[in-house]
């Protein structure tokens, strides 16, 4: 789950990482109140999860309430690369002496945490990596050891952070690492991490991505969930606890397992069709899950055929079949189903479907993935 900047800053604040005084606003009046509280001059920043806000006019400096009114009015509702701005973050403007970059992620290859620290911040870190890779310090951290204060200080020195800022940067690294680990982040990034003329080091931006598997131990994440922007199909899928990604094609896809779901998309594409979605019903999917999945697919007006691709491991073929029969009783499906069912209890499942008296115009069974994909794509044309 990716957080908006203002949520990231609020999350940072929980771990004592210094951020600018400010507040989030959804109306112009709220923005003015936030600016009054933060103290002028302020920066009004569009809250969208896409890069290039500044260039698009989504970040403006305001010296008084009138300027806040103008800028917030312009920015709220603005379309930045397809993202409509619903909120602005208004914060006290900082004087900047220098800009750095700091982030923690998991390096999957090394199976260790990775700190990236650079004295060249404020620009896209990919650009730095391309033009001047030597300017980025990459440090692997064993999760068992963590990041002691001395190691953080050494990292700041090794990254050639100017001496005046080294201690401040090291302090923030320790806090950011705690936020990354205890806060269950996939990514915790500060860009820019600034040095003020007065000597303090401070997070001017926040990019945080949370690991949804850890949601059970973070009740405070509930408020972040509320702002996740999903289309109607994705919302319905979330309510039903399904792994769903909306796409633009005409073949609705239901598969069990992320790999098989991806593979199903590939095969549909290979035989000349296009998928309307990615939907993984996961392991252990029962009748209810299948019925829910069909309801979500049915809510997509572009869907002309539905390809159910199930290979049973934990998921049992008889339960899947039961789910389809049940769903056909519950929902009036607009599109015909092509199913390919194999693995655990597949024969029982196929029998259930055969004996349910479903007309062939509504459901066809194929024995291989390719045949099923061809049939589904033909029906969608």
């Amino acid at each position: 789950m990716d957080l908006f900047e203002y949520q990231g800053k609020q999350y940072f604040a929980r771990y004592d990482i210094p951020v600018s005084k400010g507040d989030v606003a959804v109306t112009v009046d709220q923005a003015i109140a936030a600016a009054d509280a933060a103290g002028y001059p302020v920066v009004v920043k569009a809250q969208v999860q896409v890069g290039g806000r500044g260039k698009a006019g989504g970040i403006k400096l305001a010296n008084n309430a009138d300027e806040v009114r103008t800028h917030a009015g312009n920015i709220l509702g603005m379309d930045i690369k397809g993202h409509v701005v619903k909120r602005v973050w208004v914060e006290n403007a900082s004087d900047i002496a220098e800009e750095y970059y700091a982030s923690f992620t998991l390096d999957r290859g090394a199976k260790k945490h990775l700190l990236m620290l650079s004295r060249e911040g404020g620009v896209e870190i990919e650009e730095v990596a391309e033009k001047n890779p030597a300017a980025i310090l990459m440090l692997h951290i064993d999760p068992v050891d963590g990041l002691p204060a001395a190691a953080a200080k050494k990292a700041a020195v090794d990254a050639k952070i100017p001496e005046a800022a080294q201690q401040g940067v090291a302090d923030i690294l320790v806090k950011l690492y705690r936020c990354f680990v205890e806060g269950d982040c996939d990514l915790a990034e500060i860009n820019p991490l600034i040095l003020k003329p007065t000597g303090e080091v401070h997070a001017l931006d926040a990019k945080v991505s949370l690991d949804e598997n850890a949601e059970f131990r973070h009740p405070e994440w509930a408020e972040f969930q509320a702002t996740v922007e999903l289309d109607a199909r994705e919302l319905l899928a979330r309510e039903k606890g399904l792994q769903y990604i909306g796409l633009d094609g005409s073949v609705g896809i239901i598969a069990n397992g992320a790999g098989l779901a991806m593979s199903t998309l590939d095969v549909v594409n290979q035989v000349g069709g296009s998928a309307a979605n990615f939907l993984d019903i996961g392991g252990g999917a029962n009748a209810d899950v299948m019925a829910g999945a069909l309801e979500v697919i049915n809510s997509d007006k572009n869907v002309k055929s539905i390809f159910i691709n199930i290979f049973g491991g934990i998921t049992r073929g008889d339960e899947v079949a039961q789910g389809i029969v049940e769903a056909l009783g519950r929902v009036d499906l607009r599109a015909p189903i092509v199913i390919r069912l194999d693995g655990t209890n597949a024969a029982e499942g196929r029998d259930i479907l055969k004996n349910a008296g479903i007309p062939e115009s509504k459901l066809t069974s194929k024995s291989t993935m390719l045949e099923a994909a061809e049939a589904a794509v033909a029906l969608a044309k």
Partner: protein
Amino acid sequence: MAIFVDQNTKVIVQGLTGGQGKYHGLRNKAYGTQIVAGVTPGKGGTDVEGIPVYNSVAEAVKATGATASFVTVPPKAASAAILEAAGAGITFIVCITEGIPAQDEARTYNTLVRDFPKVRLLGPNCPGIISPGKCNIGITAGEIAQLPSAKGPNVGIVSRSGTLTYQALYELKQLGIGVSTCVGIGGDPVPGTSFIDCLREFQADPETHAIIMIGEIGGSAEEEAAEFIKANVTKPMSAYIAGVTAPAGKKMGHAGAIVSGGKGTAQGKMDALRAAGVLVGHNPTEAGSLMAGIVAGIVAGLS
């Protein structure tokens, strides 16, 4: 021969008294796996259809001499269960649990590396391992796995994706090709066992004559495997990578993009494997038929 597990492997099930644990534990037993005990804290002294249940892994190991464990407990308890098994002398741990936080996985993996270097963890979030006819630990439906033949050729399977592992088994069964061992390494960020670990074992296993590898987008495990194959694997291989048409998935932001440095796309992975001499199919069925060609070539060479 087979890799990691065979007919002599004694297995305990951590979580045998739970719904999934009971269902799959009993299925594994019915397949012929030596499921010798279950472990559920507080339920010691009971049994699940004749399989004795102990309060701790240490007690179960002491009573049965088990060396492998099948961990099927909820995400919150999985890390502790894995470390308990390692501490009690289990040397091969299969964890099928889905949804373990990445931070827990990273800490658990590195704790194993440091404190229990001889312990192998398979998973988490994997379908398990099956050496057909000998041992099945996990959630694979045993009947879809073709038994290896005494004179070969037999194929080893290693896969990052659960259902595609079954798909690969199924394709080989349709073609009548025997399987030495099929390992599902799982798709989580920090898998205990990598492609390379399995490739090394398959290369050394005299009963394995060729290898199928199933990968997917994200990370760089397939590219690393390709490097390893180029230098170390002489047995013929076919492969499939899922996700050619998948939308750019969960973005890790800028930092993530840098770590993978252009790696992680299906195309990049297929190119890397091809450059290492692997035959790459466009779907699982094609990877199966490419393997059929490889096997026919081996048979022709043998006769």
